[in-house]
């Protein structure tokens, strides 16, 4: 055992973490990612390659179940790192290293794991098996080998009869919006049909998740907001709780009358875009550029000055912006058109595809609030849509766009997005992020008071992520899996934004 103990200790010094982000865990995730980058621990691409499972934030029931499933399947030596809001990731990771290096304990864990997996009772696969590996449903016996039903068949886009696999993408997937699950029907590696849902703890849309948990999480969201209300301190690291949409925080605070400077808000905006860029570049298979984006993001959030950030950002933006290979790969993917919004929209005309912030998504006042209660920052949302002049307002005045109303989820999905800053293809959205980040970094020193609510993804009150999620199934259908990942990453819906809505 001497040798294997020694190997275990050596291995423990360089674990491979798999990071899962729970609702409102973005702040913790950012701290974890910064810490992991500092330690030079490479992120695992899936549960099989991981030895650490890092959970940022407090998962709700469904996400917790998915995490447990992944954890059960992970091979020893392994360690679970749970980071509720406000925990110090460095200390927790250090403790995990100690646990990983404890060879006798890991051997006991491995034996227990082996004993668990020995019995022939099959694991619930597919749908139950949230996330990491929807087992495909092949088997040599008819019926349901291993308790898994055989895959059904159907004509694919070329008219061939192919197996249809029902695979949930997410919620535990690298570089993936937290809590998002795309229920995909795959034929080969092409998505034939897609629908989305969010794990509870976020907004529960008109999906398979049913009412029971909705009340609870709605109340929880309300509670979070109240606590954020009373917490006057909004400097990220100073406040432990952090159960508010992290990227929208400056605008939400400003809308509630707190004093927020434009410079602070632009800092958050730049970091948000850099985070999205990091994800998109990682999914595009360019980890080096993704690492640069994330390093810039971390430095921006840590308070680096404009002079400090600008040269490296300029270098980064040139390299990414000029990569013809990247452009070639991202062109014509996930095109969201500029068609006019659904009838009933107020201030209808579709906006020009803005570059760097001319056109904004805007849902106006009562978006998605069937109950008639105004959404967060609703008034400011309507105001900004008028101010920016490109309002693709839907349901201004409340009620018209209740979240229960079909897939539209409040905003008239396609129209709302098409008229805004998410139109065009993946490459166009990448360019817009690059430009917007540059603009935001340029305004880091602006001491004026933040008065609008144009957050990183559009007017905060209108919750543009809701519209992004609404268009998602449409743009994913008929798309290859890798392209689908790029499309999701290029829209990068902020699922935390949805939780900020008062629920019906």
């Amino acid at each position, binding site marked *: 055992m001497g040798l294997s103990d020694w*190997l275990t200790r050596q*291995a423990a010094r360089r674990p491979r973490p798999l990071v899962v982000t729970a609702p409102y865990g973005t702040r913790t995730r950012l701290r974890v990612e910064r810490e992991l980058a500092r330690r030079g621990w490479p992120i695992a691409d899936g549960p099989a390659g991981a030895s650490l499972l890092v959970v940022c934030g407090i998962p709700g029931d469904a996400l917790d179940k998915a995490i447990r499933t992944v954890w059960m399947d992970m091979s020893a030596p392994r360690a679970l790192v749970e980071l509720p809001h406000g925990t110090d990731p460095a200390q927790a990771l250090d403790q995990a290293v100690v646990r990983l290096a404890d060879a006798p304990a890991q051997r006991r864990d491995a034996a227990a794991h082996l004993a668990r997996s020995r019995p022939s009772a099959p694991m619930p696969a597919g749908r139950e098996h949230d996330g*990491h590996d929807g087992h495909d449903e092949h088997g040599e016996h008819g019926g349901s080998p291993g308790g898994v039903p055989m895959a059904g068949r159907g004509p694919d886009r070329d008219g061939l009869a192919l197996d249809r696999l029902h695979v949930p993408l997410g919620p535990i997937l690298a*570089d993936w919006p937290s809590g998002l699950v795309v229920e995909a029907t795959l034929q080969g590696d092409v998505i034939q049909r897609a629908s989305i849902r969010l794990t509870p703890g976020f907004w529960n849309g008109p999906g398979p998740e049913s009412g029971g948990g909705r009340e609870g999480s709605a109340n929880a969201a309300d509670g979070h907001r109240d606590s954020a209300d009373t917490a006057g301190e909004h400097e990220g690291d100073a406040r432990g709780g952090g159960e508010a949409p992290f990227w929208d925080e400056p605008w939400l605070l400003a809308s509630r009358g707190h004093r927020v400077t434009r410079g602070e808000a632009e800092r958050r905006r730049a970091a948000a875009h850099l985070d999205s860029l990091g994800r998109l570049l990682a*999914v595009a298979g360019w980890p080096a550029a993704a690492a640069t984006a994330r390093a810039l993001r971390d430095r921006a959030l840590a308070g680096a000055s404009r002079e400090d950030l600008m040269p490296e950002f300029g270098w980064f933006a040139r390299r990414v912006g000029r990569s013809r290979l*990247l452009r070639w790969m991202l062109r014509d993917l996930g095109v969201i058109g500029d068609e006019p919004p659904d009838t009933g929209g107020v201030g209808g005309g579709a906006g020009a595809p803005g570059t760097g912030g001319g056109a904004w998504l805007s849902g106006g006042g009562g978006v998605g609030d069937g109950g008639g209660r105004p959404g967060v920052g609703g008034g400011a949302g309507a105001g900004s849509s008028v101010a920016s002049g490109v309002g693709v307002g839907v349901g201004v005045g409340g009620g018209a766009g209740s979240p229960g109303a079909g897939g539209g989820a409040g905003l008239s999905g396609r129209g709302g997005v098409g008229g805004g800053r998410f139109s065009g293809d993946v490459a166009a959205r990448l360019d817009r992020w690059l430009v917007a980040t540059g603009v935001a970094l340029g305004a880091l020193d602006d001491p004026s008071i933040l008065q609008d609510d144009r957050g990183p993804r559009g007017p905060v009150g209108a919750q543009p992520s809701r519209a992004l999620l609404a268009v998602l199934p449409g743009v994913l259908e008929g798309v290859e899996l890798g392209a689908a990942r790029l499309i999701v990453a290029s829209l990068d819906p902020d699922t935390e934004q949805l939780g900020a809505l008062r629920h019906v």
Partner: protein
Amino acid sequence: MSEAVPYGIVVAFPVALAGFTVVAAVFDSVVGAGWSWRAAGGPLREAARLLVQQRRRTLLPDTLLLRAGVCGLLVAAVLAGVVLPLGERPVADPPVGVVWFNAMEVCVWGAIWLTGWGTNSCYPLVGGYRFVAQGLAYELPHMFALITVGLGAGSLRVGEVVAAQSGLWFVVWMPVAFAVYLVSAAAMAFWGPMDRPVGSDIAGGVRGELSGPDRLVFQVGRYALLVVAAAAAVPFFLGGGAGPVLPAWAWTAIKTAAVLAGLIWAAHRLPAVRMDRFTQVSWLVLIPASLLQLLVVAVVVL
């Protein structure tokens, strides 16, 4: 060429292959960490981790095919490498050495597909699909590049290919074939911009359910394949062991290291290439270009 192979070569070959495989993994880790030499120990710690890690089980795997696939990758890399001269001569120098090399690396197709299929899980299967699509894109230009080499040398024996370059390296008058070879070498080892079969966007793809020793053997096989693909460029295009002052084995090592470093650097410098885009270029640009190169070489040889 027919006398018995000296034992020295038989011993030196695995040592050299193993050495280069470790160096490739270390260099990859260093470049991947932004040229941080702190990351140099990474691959060895990773190997230690995988050695003590439990094997992961999926539901109803086809264990035989899975093991065949995982081990097949390394076996194919080793077998492809035996025809490459380490200095003066290779372990084996059959009259159809170039074809042998090509045939062994086509076995990689089988190895990858078996790994992806045998796991009985969705993402590895998708990774398998991706590699098959990749094979369709790269293999024809790759074969034309190798045929160009054989035509230029008037022989398929690797030793004679090297000898034919004593005056002028093939890279000088077959630059297109060399460029095509480098692209296809990366594709063959599903490396760098061509790494989508094991892409992080599908949770590791083909290797997505491998852990412990399975993953270790797979990773070693992949790096070994990359080394062999880079090393083959030396006898095929870069004059083999020819060079001033230093002995042939040293020049072979230096040239191999240079090609390898280029491939590893490119992997971190470029975003990934998806085959649904690349195949069109491969068939409409690379195949015609390599055929033109073949024509030019044929005219020159005549």
